[in-house]
């Protein structure tokens, strides 16, 4: 049991370090959206999701409705349902319902990727070990960014503002380069999002609904035009 936990913990360290830097930027962003340090930290500790949290900030700042918040998080985080379904087939008999309910909280893109790439089945001890460093990194990074971000000189804060988008680009570009359907979906979603920002009339749609409309339309168009071209993650 203990060796499995330690192995999982070790595998989580690079993820935790990556999260530390990205959540630092999230902490800064949260403060400039009007949240306090502890409000930002609590969001990270309880959500553990980069895109969902970044998208929530303008909604909170604008005083958006709770339905809009729920639908935005649902759309952005829908991918986790797929990852959980896929990971479910890889769990061994130690992962009974209780541990499944506990671990699923931490099924992020990166934790899912590492757990899925392990040979054979994975169990409770390994997965519990794997959760630790990413959760600590994500929460601690948010605290540091929210508490110390304002102490940094303006030019460093401006530079850090792009960090999270750099991470998004690193996620979408390699598959977009290799696979035409993904390229199509990314370009269509980005183009729609640009229209919703600048076209008069469309630019009155709030940020949450813009993401929902663009993502659902682009993914549906991809699924209609390129059926059966994507493997399960």
């Amino acid at each position: 049991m203990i060796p499995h936990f330690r192995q999982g913990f070790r595998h989580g360290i690079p993820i935790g370090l990556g999260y530390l830097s990205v959540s630092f930027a999230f902490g800064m962003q949260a403060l400039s959206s009007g949240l306090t340090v502890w409000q930002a930290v609590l969001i990270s500790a309880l959500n553990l999701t980069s895109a969902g949290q970044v998208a929530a900030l303008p909604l909170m700042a604008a005083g958006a409705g709770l339905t809009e918040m729920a639908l935005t998080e649902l759309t952005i985080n829908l991918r986790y349902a797929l990852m959980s379904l896929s990971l479910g087939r890889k769990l061994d008999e130690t992962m009974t319902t209780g541990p499944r309910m506990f671990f699923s909280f931490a099924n992020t893109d990166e934790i899912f990727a590492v757990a899925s790439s392990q040979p054979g089945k994975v169990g409770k001890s390994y997965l519990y070990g794997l959760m630790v460093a990413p959760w600590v990194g994500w929460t601690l990074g948010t605290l540091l960014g929210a508490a110390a971000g304002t102490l940094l000189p303006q030019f460093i804060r401006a530079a850090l503002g792009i960090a999270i988008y750099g991470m998004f680009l690193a996620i979408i570009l390699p598959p977009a380069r290799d696979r035409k359907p993904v390229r199509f979906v990314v370009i269509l979603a980005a183009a729609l999002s640009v229209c919703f920002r600048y076209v008069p009339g469309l630019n009155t749609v709030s940020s949450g609904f813009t993401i929902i409309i663009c993502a659902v339309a682009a993914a549906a168009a991809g699924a209609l035009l390129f059926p059966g071209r994507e493997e399960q993650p």
Partner: protein
Amino acid sequence: MSLSSYFPYLAVMAVVTYLIRMLPLTVFRREIRSRFLQDFLNYIPYAVLGAMTFPDVMYSTGNMWTALAGVIVAVILAWRGKSLLTVAVAACLAVAAAQGIMLLF
């Protein structure tokens, strides 16, 4: 932000995000049969991130030109398949460098 408006947001975010992750791992363990739905769910992450990145990234540094420098560097490195951390840090450094160059002129 006042606590009375903060906590409802926090609760909705955390509960929705948790249920999306938890239910398929505990309750709905069946395969998705619909080909369309499978494809749709596979494309959703790329669509979400594409829509969230553009055009917002151009406003992320407070200056379009420094943001453009960061985007160019990030696109080149991401295209070559560099890690998330490398791309994110290089984009920040490119923005910092662009700010420095703009100070000179």
